[in-house]
């Protein structure tokens, strides 16, 4: 039953975390004025970020095992992801204000569509929170499937044939993929027959880890394969990524930012959560980490090949997502010191990719296209978002001193230290290909000659703040890592390793 062992002090945190988005989801359907709707959305997301900060404070002050209430739990791994979610939602919601103001002014979006956006945006926030706070793997699965259903109609906010096609592909591929993950859950239940766990406890990841030694090993391994293929479809791990570039390129920019910045990470979190259970069950032999590493390496190579041939900037960014999900998977898969670096990369990539999609969206509105052949001279025409796009793209391909360079370097370093040369070699080959291929695109977009002369665009103070905060954040995260943060990430890494 849900109610056992509830310490109401922590129970309130979970109640608040889920209540804020649900209230927004229902309430925002009634807000007629689009501007009021956007600002209410900002307020709700900020409120959610505050609750997450409160949870973090309780986590640091509280017992070592994390916060628990029935089927819910927050430990270092889940709080790290909650924090990244809060950052991505805060940036992209404030960005949505300026993005949709322009759309409303140009009359390209209706107030009805805006209400749908507000409600589904909150729904997505709630579903992702559910995933990150569930200790019960069944509840976690329900959360992942709900994120698909909540975000499907966000892709086709502008109803065009191309966006409907992208939405249908996304809906079907992810629903089917996640259905396979459910089979994985069922196999975990089957594997847990010998543990004596019953009722609701049989799917609790914390309980499963405690009696991992009694799980049926071959069945757990089979379960992990289903889980990684299932959730991996949603992460966009190659070769299961085919929905991803379509959905990212067709969705409105704030939605693309959310997809790339955190939707993929939600599914990856589900994989990390079960990786800990499976690793503990197979006796920390690194079997589960090895499977994840293999998927990661394939993703990096496939993404590198596609990045070379892209002409649409949003599709380019989408393939960068496949690459970076691969980098995180490889980092986790290398084990040991690479895991905390991979979790650090989760934050860096999400912040960077949110800025990249936001910039691409505003520049797309300005130029009327996402074709990189025509998006030229962006620095001269739009210094604010031009800097945002160029800066974030340079960070994405691994330029120092941005944080992504540092986390990738740490992953490679840990791989070299443990002597995993083949993985490190493939990793470096893939990322170098991406660097060379994408740098060409970046230089042309940044300083290429525009075909016609235009006035320099002035942007609002909000937009200048957003770009500055993200870029400064990426540099600071790359140059400054307090020991406490590192220890926290290492604690999260131990959960993934099942130790």
């Amino acid at each position, binding site marked *: 039953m849900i109610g056992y062992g509830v310490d109401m002090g922590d129970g309130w945190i979970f109640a608040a975390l889920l209540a804020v988005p649900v209230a927004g989801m229902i309430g925002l359907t009634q807000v007629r004025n689009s501007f009021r709707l956007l600002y209410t959305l900002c307020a709700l997301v900020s409120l959610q970020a505050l609750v997450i900060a409160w949870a973090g404070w309780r986590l640091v002050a509280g017992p070592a095992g994390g916060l628990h209430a029935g089927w819910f739990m927050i430990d270092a791994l889940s709080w790290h992801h909650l924090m990244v979610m809060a950052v991505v939602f805060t940036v992209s919601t404030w960005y949505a204000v300026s993005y949709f103001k322009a759309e409303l002014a140009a009359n390209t979006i209706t107030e009805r569509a805006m209400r749908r956006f507000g409600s589904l945006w909150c729904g997505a926030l709630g579903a992702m929170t559910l995933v990150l706070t569930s200790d019960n793997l069944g509840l976690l699965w329900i959360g992942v499937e709900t994120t698909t259903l909540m975000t499907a109609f966000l892709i086709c906010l502008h109803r065009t044939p191309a966006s409907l096609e992208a939405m249908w592909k996304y809906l079907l591929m992810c629903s089917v993929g996640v259905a396979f993950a459910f089979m994985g859950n069922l196999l975990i239940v089957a594997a847990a027959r010998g543990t004596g766990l019953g009722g609701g406890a049989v*799917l609790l990841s914390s309980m499963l880890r405690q009696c991992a030694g009694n799980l049926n090993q071959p069945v757990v391994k089979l379960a992990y394969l289903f889980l990684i293929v299932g959730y991996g479809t949603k992460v966009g791990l190659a070769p299961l990524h085919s929905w991803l570039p379509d959905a990212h390129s067709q969705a409105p920019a704030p939605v693309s930012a959310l997809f790339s910045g955190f939707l993929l990470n939600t599914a990856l979190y589900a994989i990390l959560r079960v990786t800990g259970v499976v690793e503990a069950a197979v006796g920390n032999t690194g079997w589960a980490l090895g499977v994840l590493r293999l998927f990661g390496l394939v993703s990096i190579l496939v993404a590198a090949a596609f990045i070379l041939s892209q002409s649409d900037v949003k599709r380019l960014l989408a393939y960068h997502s496949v690459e970076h999900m691969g980098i995180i998977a490889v980092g986790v898969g290398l084990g040991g010191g690479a895991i905390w670096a991979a979790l650090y990369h989760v934050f860096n990539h999400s912040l960077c990719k949110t800025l990249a999609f936001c910039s691409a969206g505003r520049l797309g509105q300005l130029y009327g296209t996402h074709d990189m052949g025509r998006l030229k001279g962006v620095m001269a025409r739009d210094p604010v978002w031009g800097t945002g796009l160029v800066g974030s793209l340079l960070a994405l391909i691994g330029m120092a001193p941005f944080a992504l360079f540092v986390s990738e370097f740490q992953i490679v370093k840990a791989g070299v230290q443990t002597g995993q040369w083949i993985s490190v070699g493939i990793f470096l080959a893939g990322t170098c290909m991406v660097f060379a291929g994408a740098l060409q695109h970046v230089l042309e977009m940044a300083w290429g000659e525009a075909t016609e002369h235009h006035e320099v665009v002035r942007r609002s103070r909000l937009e200048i703040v957003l770009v500055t905060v993200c870029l400064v954040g990426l540099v600071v995260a790359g140059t400054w890592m307090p020991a406490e943060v590192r220890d926290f990430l290492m604690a999260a890494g131990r959960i993934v390793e099942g130790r």
Partner: protein
Amino acid sequence: MWVDGLFVVLTIANLILLGTTRLSHSIRVVAVQGVLLALLPILRVESIHVTRALFLVVLTAALKGGVFPAMLMRSMREASVRREMEPMLGFTASMALGVAMLAASFWMGGRMQALGLEVSPISMASVLFMMFTGILLLTARRKALTQVLGFLVLENGIYGFGLLVAGSVHWLVEVGVLLDVFVAVFVMGIAVYHINREFDHMNVDELDRLRG
């Protein structure tokens, strides 16, 4: 014994699905399949919580046998499609592939026992075949509506698989999963409607503008 008999009926339903062109016919077959699966926990004597088991049986049967077919019939009427014409894989070829998949399912069902999962090989082969059938309908048919049916057949297979290998999962999880499937079918129904409006018809092979 009863359980194995039921699974033989379910297997025949899959073969029918692979060979029919009329969508309304397929929708009914999937509904019957869903209801039969929903009744399965009653045949298993070890169900302890009788009220909970009955509640789930009634809810599952109502959704799979009543609500889903009604929703699908409605979007079929709105989209005015009746038949699956010119599938990517012909009906005879589908049947032949189906028989091959059935053989593979029996082989895999036997392998499952080697893993230490104590289930009847006939039942296991039947649910695996159901999943394969769902995947085939998802990949080898042109109509968006048939793909939704494929998704439902896959879900039915996974539901059966769960009953066999996991017994009953906690009832709250089961209700949550049912709710998710319900919303998924609902959302897919709306999507079919909009795709139909934008594309004039619902052939998914028209959905090929986004590539590379």
